[in-house]
C-alpha cells in the first residue's frame, strides 16, 4: 500500500540525512521506527507526505508516486494520509470541535469551511470520534485549555477524521508523561485495529515500541539497520542502533 524506494534526503549537499531507504508498509498493523535523535526518523516520516521534500527516490502510495505529484494532486493524496504530531499542532484558538473538523478541510470547499458549514455526516462522525477518544464533553472548549494528553487525543481524532488509508505519527508521545504515553499508544493501537488502518509511528521509547508494534524498523545514521518483529530485537541490535558514535556521522 505504501512503498518507499531509494528514498534519500540531504538538507546540506554532501551530508545525507536519509540514505537509500527501501520500505514496504503493509495494509494493516503498527510499524514503529526507532533510533536516536538526528538519525532521520522524523525526516523519513515527513517525506512520506512531502512536508519535507525528498532529494531522491519514489514514494508509492495507493498506486501513485507522490514525489512527482502536482500541488493539487498532492493535496488530494494528503487527504488520505493522516498525521499526528509530537507537539499536537492543534490550532490553539479554535475549539476542539473545529480542530477535529479541520481533518475534513481537504474535502470541503474553502468558502464552506470559512463559514463552518460542514456536512452533517461529518459533524456526526466528529462527535463519534470525540466519544472514541474520550473527549465528548470538551467539544466546545478551546484547544489551548486542554492538557497535553487531551490535546494529543484531539490530534488523533483530527487525523482519523480524514478517513485515511494510513496514519503517520511523528513522536506522538515524546511530550507526554509515561502514563499518558501508554494511554495514547493504546488509543492508536485500538484505532488501528478497529478501523483497519496501518499506522507508522516514530518513537524514542523502545519499550513502548516493543509493547505495541507489530513490526519494528531500527534506523541509524540515516539507514535502516533492523527490520522485523519486536521479538527479534536483541540487545546487540539495540546497541548497534543506539550505542556508539555511528549516528553522529
Amino acid at each position: 500500500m505504501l512503498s518507499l524506494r531509494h528514498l534519500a534526503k540531504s538538507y546540506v549537499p554532501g551530508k545525507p540525512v536519509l540514505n537509500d531507504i527501501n520500505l514496504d508498509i503493509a495494509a494493516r498493523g503498527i510499524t514503529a521506527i526507532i533510533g536516536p535523535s538526528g538519525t532521520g526518523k522524523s525526516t523519513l516520516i515527513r517525506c512520506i507526505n512531502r512536508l519535507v521534500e525528498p532529494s531522491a527516490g519514489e514514494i508509492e502510495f495507493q498506486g501513485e508516486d507522490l514525489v512527482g505529484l502536482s500541488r493539487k494532486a498532492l493535496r488530494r493524496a494528503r487527504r488520505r494520509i493522516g498525521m499526528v504530531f509530537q507537539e499536537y499542532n492543534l490550532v490553539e484558538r479554535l475549539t476542539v470541535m473545529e480542530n477535529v473538523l479541520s481533518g475534513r478541510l481537504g474535502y470541503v470547499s474553502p468558502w464552506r469551511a470559512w463559514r463552518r458549514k460542514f456536512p452533517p455526516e461529518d459533524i456526526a462522525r466528529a462527535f463519534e470520534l470525540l466519544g472514541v477518544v474520550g473527549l465528548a464533553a470538551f467539544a466546545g472548549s478551546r484547544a489551548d485549555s486542554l492538557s497535553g494528553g487531551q490535546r494529543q487525543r484531539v490530534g488523533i481524532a483530527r487525523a482519523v477524521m480524514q478517513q485515511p488509508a494510513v496514519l503517520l505519527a511523528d513522536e506522538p508521545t515524546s511530550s507526554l508523561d509515561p502514563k499518558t504515553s501508554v494511554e495514547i499508544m493504546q488509543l492508536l493501537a485500538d484505532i488501528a485495529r478497529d478501523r483497519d488502518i496501518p499506522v507508522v509511528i516514530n518513537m524514542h521509547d523502545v519499550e513502548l515500541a516493543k509493547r505495541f508494534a507489530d513490526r519494528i524498523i531500527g534506523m541509524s545514521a540515516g539507514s535502516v539497520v533492523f527490520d522485523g518483529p519486536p521479538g527479534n530485537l536483541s540487545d546487540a541490535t539495540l546497541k548497534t542502533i543506539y550505542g556508539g558514535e555511528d549516528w553522529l556521522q
Partner: protein
Amino acid sequence: MTEAAHDLAWRRFTPAQRIARFAVYLAIIAGIVVSIQSVEVIPEFLADAPDQVADLFARMWPIDLAYYPRGVHAALMETIHIASLGTLLSLVLALPIGLLAAHNLCPSTPVNLFAKLILVSSRSVNSLVWALLFVGIFGPGALAGTLAIAFRSIGFVGKLFGEALEETSHGPIEALDAAGAPALSRLAYGYWPQVKPAFWSIALFRWDINVRESAVLGLVGAGGIGMTLDAALNLFQWERVAVILLAIFVIVILAEVVVTVVRKRVL
C-alpha cells in the same frame, strides 16, 4: 450509544453570541451606508483628481534645494527642539499622573478615575488643537508648540506608564514593606527599578512620534517647520513646499533610525 445524548447539530456560537455579533455587523453596515449617503462627493472633482495630482507634482519639480539653508534649516532645528522639550516636559508631568492612575500604587478609585480622565482628555485633543489653544494663550511661536506637544503627550506617556506600573511584580514591594520602608522609598526602590526600562522606551517612542507631530504644528502658528510650510503653501510656492516636505520626511526617518539605534544599544 452515546450519540443519543448529543445534539448532532453543532453550532459555533451560542444564540446569544450570534445576536451580539450580528448586531455589531448591522451597526457597522448601517453606519457605512448612512455615511456614504451623507458625505458630499462632487463627481467632477473626483474625476479631475489624477490631473490635479499630476499638476501638483509638475509644479513641485524641480525641488528648490537651494532654499534649504536659508529658509528651512533653522525651522527644522526649531522643530526638533519643540519635539524634544515637549517630550521632556510631558515626562515630568505624566509621571505623577500615571502614578495616581495606577490602582496598585494609589488605591483610591476616585483619584484613579480623575487621573484617567486627565489622561483621556489629553489624548482626545489633537496636538494641533492643543497648539491652537496655546497659540491663543501665549501667542504664536515655539512656546505654544512645545506646550502643545507636552500636553498631548501626557496622555500617551501616562497611559503606557500606568500599564507598566500595573504589570510590576508585587514581590519586591512586599519585601520593602516587610522591612518597614516609607512610601517614597517604596516608590524609588520597589517600583522605579522595575519600570525604568519601560519608561525610557515609552519616552523614546513618544519622542519619535512628536518629531512627526511637531512638523505640522506650525500650520496653526505654533512654530517650527510647519510655519515655513504654511507660508509656502499660501504663496503657492510649490518647489519650496517640495523641499520642505522632503526635509520633514528625512528628519522623520532620521528620528526613527536614532530611536532604533538607541533602543538596541541602551535598552
